[in-house]
C-alpha cells in the first residue's frame, strides 16, 4: 500500500495535530470539518502552532509554508474517495463516530484503511456500522502529536491482519513513531494507567497526605515525569479525565476507577485545567504554569 494522501476527519486539537504532523512528514492531507468557519479555525490554529515551532527554531519559514501547502480544506466526507487512508478524530460520541464511519465506508474503496483516534470507545462497535469491518482500526495519537512519538494501534474484533500490518507500517515508517499493538479494551494502555495514577493522586490530595505541589514534585523529580499527575490532569482537561474514569468504571465495574470526589467538584466548578486557566494549578493563555 502506498500512503501519499490522507484524509483527517475533524479539526479539533487532535485533528489539527495529526494533520500538521502528517504534512510535516511530506504527506498530502485533506482536512474535513462541517463548516467553513470550523475549517478556517482549524487551519489557522495549525498556522499558529507552526509559528510557535518557528519561534522555537524547530522549523524554518520555508518548511512552514511547505507544511501548510500540503493541507487542503475539505467540506464533505464525499471528497475523501481518493485518499490512501482516513483518520477520524471527531469528539468522543459513539453515534456521531458511527455515522462518519458508515459514510466513509461508502466513499472509500474497500481496501482503504479507516482509522479512529478514539481513546476509549469500542472499535468493534464503530466497525459494526460499516460493510467492511476488517479495514477499521484504532490509531490513538497522544497530544501534542508532533512531540509524542507513540501511537496505540488498536485491533477491533474483526480488524484483519493486513489492516494491522499496514497500519503499523504507516505509523513506524511513514509517521516515524513507535506503534504498540493493543487489543480492544476500555482505556487501552495509556489512558487506563495514567487515569488510575491521577485518580490515586487525587485520593492522596483529598486525604491531606500531601499538597498538590508536593505530590507533583514527588513524582516529577522522584520518577522523572515531565509533569506530575495533577498537572497532567490539568493539561488533559479535568472533564476529559472524569469522563474517561467514568467510562472505565462502568465497563470494568471496579471501584478503583470511580472518579474521586475532588475531581467531580472541580469539574462542577468549571475549573477544567489549562483550557480554563485554572485546575489544580493556574496557567496563562499560552498554557504555561503561573
Amino acid at each position, binding site marked *: 500500500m*502506498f500512503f*501519499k494522501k490522507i484524509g483527517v476527519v475533524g479539526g479539533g486539537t487532535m485533528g489539527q495535530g495529526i494533520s500538521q504532523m502528517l504534512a510535516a512528514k*511530506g504527506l498530502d492531507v485533506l482536512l474535513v470539518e462541517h463548516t467553513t468557519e470550523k475549517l478556517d479555525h482549524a487551519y489557522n490554529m495549525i498556522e499558529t502552532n507552526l509559528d510557535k*515551532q518557528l519561534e*522555537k*527554531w*524547530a*522549523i*524554518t519559514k520555508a518548511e512552514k509554508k511547505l507544511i501548510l501547502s500540503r493541507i487542503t480544506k475539505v467540506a464533505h466526507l464525499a471528497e475523501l474517495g481518493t485518499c490512501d487512508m482516513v483518520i477520524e478524530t471527531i469528539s468522543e460520541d459513539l453515534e456521531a463516530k458511527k455515522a462518519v464511519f458508515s459514510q466513509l465506508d461508502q466513499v472509500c474503496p474497500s481496501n482503504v484503511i479507516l482509522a479512529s483516534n478514539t481513546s476509549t470507545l469500542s472499535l468493534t462497535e464503530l466497525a459494526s456500522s460499516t460493510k467492511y469491518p476488517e479495514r477499521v482500526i484504532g490509531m490513538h495519537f497522544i497530544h501534542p502529536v508532533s*512531540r509524542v512519538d507513540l501511537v496505540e494501534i488498536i485491533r477491533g474484533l474483526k480488524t484483519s491482519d493486513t489492516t494491522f500490518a499496514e497500519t503499523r507500517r504507516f505509523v513506524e515508517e511513514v509517521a516515524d513513531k513507535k506503534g504498540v499493538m493493543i487489543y480492544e479494551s476500555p482505556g487501552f494502555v495509556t489512558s487506563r494507567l495514567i487515569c488510575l495514577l491521577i485518580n490515586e493522586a487525587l485520593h492522596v490530595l483529598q486525604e491531606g497526605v500531601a499538597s498538590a505541589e508536593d505530590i507533583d514534585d514527588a513524582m516529577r523529580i522522584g520518577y522523572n515525569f515531565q509533569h506530575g499527575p495533577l498537572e497532567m490532569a490539568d493539561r488533559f482537561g479535568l472533564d476529559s479525565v472524569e469522563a474517561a474514569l467514568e467510562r472505565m468504571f462502568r465497563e470494568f465495574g471496579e471501584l478503583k476507577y470511580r472518579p474521586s470526589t475532588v475531581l467531580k467538584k472541580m469539574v462542577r466548578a468549571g475549573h477544567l485545567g489549562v483550557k480554563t486557566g485554572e485546575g489544580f494549578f493556574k496557567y496563562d493563555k499560552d498554557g504555561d504554569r503561573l
Partner: protein
Amino acid sequence: MKVLVINAGSSSLKYQLYNMTDESVLAKGLVERIGMDSSILTHKPTGREDVTEVSEILEHTTAIRKVIDILTDKENGVLGSVDEIQAVGHRVVHGGEAFKESALVDDASKAEIRRLFDLAPLHNPAAMMGIRAAEANMPGVPQVMVFDTAFHQTMPEKAYLYAIPRVLYKKYKVRRYGAHGTSHDYVSKAAAEYLDRPLEDLKIITCHVGNGGSVTAVQGGVSVDTSMGMTPLEGLMMGTRSGDLDPAIVPYVMNKEELSVSEVNSMLNKHSGLLAISGISSDMREITEGMEAGDANSTLAFEMYEYRLRKYIGSYAAAMNGVDVIVFTAGVGENSVVLRQKVCEQLTYLGVELDEALNAIRSGEPRRITTANSKVDVLVVPTNEELVIARDTHRIVLNSL
C-alpha cells in the same frame, strides 16, 4: 566512455552526462519536488535551449526513468539510446571509515552504506534510493560511489579523534569525518597543476566556502585535518549553521528553552550562522550588500564569518608548520572579492601579499590573486565535484573490466 553522474537528495536529483573521451558535458539537469504530483524536470543540453517538464514523479526510479527518457529524446536528447551510458557515478555523502576511496557498487558496498544510515540520516538513504533507481533503469551498467568523506580518511588519529571517552568511538564511531572531500581533493590538485609544482612538496590550505563551508589542511596531497566534524555542523560559521561553539551551550539552552533534540538540531543547522547574526539573510551576497549599506548586523555577521575562517587558516598553518598555497573555492570563495580581501589583509604575518587588481577579476578559470613577491600563493580555483565523480567512475569501471 559516457558516464552519467547522479547526486540524489531526498526529494531532488541532479545529473550530468559526461563524454569521457574529452571530459565534455553533454547535458545536465535537475529533478525537483520528487514525491509530489507536480515534479519539475529541468534539462540543459549543452549548447541548446533548456527544457522544463512538469509531471507526477513519486519516487526516484521514476525520476531516473524520466532523465533517461529526456537524454534519449529525439528532439531534446543527446543520446541515441540508453545503452550508450556505460557507467553511472553516484555522490554519497558519508562513507564512514569503510570507504577510503571511491568504490564499485556491489552487494557488499551497498550493505555498508546501509550501516552508515545512522551517521548521515538525511543524505545516505537518498543516495541509496538513487543507486537502486539507476539499477532498476539500467540493469547491468556498472555503478560507482564517490564519497564526500573519503579524501579525509588520511587524517591522523590526533586530528580525527575527539577528546571524549574512547568507548564512544569504539561503540558508535564518533570521530571527525569531514565533508566536501571531493572538492578539497580537486582544488588542491588543480592548484599544484596551476602553479606547476609537485603536489607532494606543497602545504595547501583549501577553503571551500559556499552555503556550507569547510577548510582543509592538505600536506603532500593528502588531507591531514579538516574543519567539519562527525557531521557538517562543526567548524566555520556558515549560511544557517553555527559551526564551532561551546558544547555546554547545547544542554544549557535545551534546558532553559525546553527544546527537544530535533529542535536544538534544527536551531543549530537551520537558524544560526549568517542568518542568525544578520537577521536578514543566509546569503553572503545579501550580507555584503547590507554591509555596504551600513547595516550594523550585516557588518557583524560578515566580520564573524571572516574572523572564523581566518582563525582556521592560521591554525592549519600551525598544524602543518607553514603554508605554501591558500585556495578559495565554492560559491562564496569563488565570488566574494571582499571576503578574500579581508582574509588576506590580516595574513601578512604569513607573508601573504594580496594583489587587489587580480583579486577583483571575475573568471571561471583558476587564478592567482597575490603579488609575485608574496611568500604564499593565494589562488581562486573553481571547484568541479561532478567532474571528479565522472573521472573516478571512469577509472574504476575501466579497471574492473
